[in-house]
């Protein structure tokens, strides 16, 4: 009985993760015009049915919310997103012609958390010039298509950018263990 993940209750043979119920209820409320007692009640009911019918494995060690890191991450994310749509970026790619040489590189993250891997992969989609092609959970390796990555210097820049992004994701969402992983690595 004591092997329950944190913030969880046992319902019959299923384990209900309360943070997931709360999150689903928040999404339910966002869809309606505003929080009312009936909305909250129906949202909790729908969320409970969902997590009981479609149980998910517990997300352990889970995520933390670190306000300062989250702000840094969000601002940089918005900046990257705007930059990736900038006309200069696309002109550069357009003028490179039809024989543009690109690369597929593998970058191994320093943390071994599924959550950090997923967060980094999602945030990478905002960074101009890199696209996640494949991921390997066992080694936390992301395989990226680097647009215009035709020399070593550019590929090194891309690797450094991914690791810097991982650092921002960890500082926004990581556990203490994740923070240690990025701190103890000088690469």
């Amino acid at each position, binding site marked *: 009985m004591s092997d329950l993940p944190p913030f969880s209750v046992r319902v019959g043979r299923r384990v209900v993760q309360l943070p997931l119920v709360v999150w689903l209820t928040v999404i339910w409320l966002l869809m309606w015009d505003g929080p009312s007692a009936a909305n909250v009640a129906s949202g909790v009911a729908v969320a409970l049915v969902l997590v009981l019918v479609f149980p998910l494995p517990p997300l352990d060690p889970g995520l933390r919310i670190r306000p300062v890191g989250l702000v840094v991450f969000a601002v940089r994310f918005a900046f990257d997103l705007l930059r990736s*749509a900038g006309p200069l970026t696309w002109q550069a*790619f*357009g003028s490179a012609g039809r024989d543009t040489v690109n690369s597929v590189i593998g970058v*191994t993250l320093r943390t071994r958390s599924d959550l950090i891997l997923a967060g980094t992969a999602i945030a990478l989609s905002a960074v101009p010039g890199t696209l996640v092609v494949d991921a390997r959970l066992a080694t936390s390796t992301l*395989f990226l*298509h680097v647009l215009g990555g035709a020399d*070593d210097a550019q590929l090194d820049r891309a690797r450094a950018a991914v690791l810097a992004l991982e650092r921002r994701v960890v500082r926004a969402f990581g556990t203490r263990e994740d923070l240690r992983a990025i701190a103890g690595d000088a690469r």
Partner: protein
Amino acid sequence: MIATVLTGACVLAGAGAALSAGLGLLRLPDLLSRMHAATKPQAVGLLMVLVAVGVRFPTGGVITTLLLVALLQLTTVPIAAHMVGRAAYRTGRVPRHLLYVDELDEALSPVPPGAGERPSGRGPDSGGEEPDAEH
């Protein structure tokens, strides 16, 4: 007045971003490059239009729905792009002669294709980063 100008600017900027996504699809040579164009600028385009709607109709119900749309867009597009890229790569739709370095190819091949045949373009810091193939 200011709201009208802001709405118009956001809609125009969003349309411009969507246009650049379309031009990128036309101009870029292979599937993976086109995925760049299909994912990034169009997400910005949609977000700009959402901002415009939020400025024009600043009520709580509208804004929460817009937030939900933005959240789902930003989290699902990378996954869809990843799935398309992965399928394209594994079915051989990626022209290898356009790749300078291809570390996924090494990672996917069960037997290393000759010890001396590593691509020349490896970064100096990549020595310990090769993932093991899935034996």
